[in-house]
């Protein structure tokens, strides 16, 4: 099989995967909706139709109802963003804001930092220009660079993710606290470079006077 056909199969496979994920997210939101309403109804009954005289028992139920509600809100947010991500390949070339894209994806990336006990901070620029590109591919690049950065960090260290405007370009900086021995090759690989090139972007490593180091992704917004 030639490379072009192989690539087309892979793209069709990704599209199918995205559609399956979107469908699953939609169904999950329905299930969560029912759980939330049922939970809410239990709370309403306890509050509005106090049939139970045992106040301690009522309080225990209310605590449990509140815990379910909190988890539903978190799960619903995840499903909302999963649905958004799964729909991204529907519009391979579209105008989008990288802040939105990162916020959507980070819901699923947070756990990687949590498991490694790395603190991740965000400094989102207010005037980062929109770019026209492939949002799903950019999320793939973000995931790769982010996980590579986590590999380089030790427990209790901090990774700061900055978005900014540079001339007419949108920039994402992965900033490491303290001095870090980071060679450009450490976080680069051929497929990542190819993906960045396809997005007409650039990836560079910057040493900020040995105080901090940045992994910088730059994307042109000239087409907007």
């Amino acid at each position, binding site marked *: 099989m030639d490379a072009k056909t192989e690539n087309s199969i892979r793209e069709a496979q990704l599209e199918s995967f995205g559609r399956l994920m979107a469908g699953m997210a939609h169904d999950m*939101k329905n299930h969560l909706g029912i759980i*939330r309403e*049922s939970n809410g*109804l239990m709370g309403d*009954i306890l509050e509005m139709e106090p049939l139970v005289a045992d106040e301690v028992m009522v309080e225990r139920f209310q605590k449990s109802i509140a815990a379910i509600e909190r988890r539903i809100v978190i799960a*619903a947010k995840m499903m*909302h*963003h*999963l649905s958004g991500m*799964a729909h991204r390949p529907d519009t391979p070339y579209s105008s989008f804001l990288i802040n939105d894209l990162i916020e959507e994806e980070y819901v699923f990336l947070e756990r990687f930092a949590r498991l490694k006990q790395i603190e991740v901070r965000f400094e989102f620029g207010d005037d980062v220009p929109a770019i026209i590109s492939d949002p799903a591919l950019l999320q793939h690049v973000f995931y790769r660079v982010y996980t590579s950065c986590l590999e380089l960090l030790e427990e209790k260290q901090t990774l700061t993710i900055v978005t900014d405007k540079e001339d007419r370009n949108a920039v994402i900086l992965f900033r490491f606290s303290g001095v870090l021995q980071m060679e450009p090759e450490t976080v680069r690989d051929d497929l990542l470079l190819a993906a960045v090139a396809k997005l007409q972007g650039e990836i560079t490593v910057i040493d900020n006077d040995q105080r901090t180091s940045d992994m910088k992704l730059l994307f042109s917004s000239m087409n907007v």
Partner: protein
Amino acid sequence: MSMPTVLIIDDEVEFASTLCQRLKLRGMATVDVHSGVEGLDALKKMNPDIIILDLKMPDMSGLDVLEKIKELDSTIEVIMLTGHGSAGSGVEAKKRGAFAYVMKPLDIAELMAIIESAHKKRGKG
């Protein structure tokens, strides 16, 4: 202040019936039905102030049901329910005359505030 009469149209039976009970507990006369056709039928019988309408149903799309509702009585306020990640369909519904759209899972406080606004718009709240 009079309480609004509410019709819920959603093919998710458990969701619709539970929401129906919650609105009843808050003093509203509420009926739930589970398809677009049933919804249009119930509309003619009960003449509700407000309709809570699911966007995606197997027999008719929520947008089609919305159009029919507005043909039958343009003063009824319709609140669309959407479970999709994109708010695009909700925005489209608003263009077609829906009062508002809310995402599932619902926040009951948010829904109550929207119902109250819709009822006021009808001059009954």
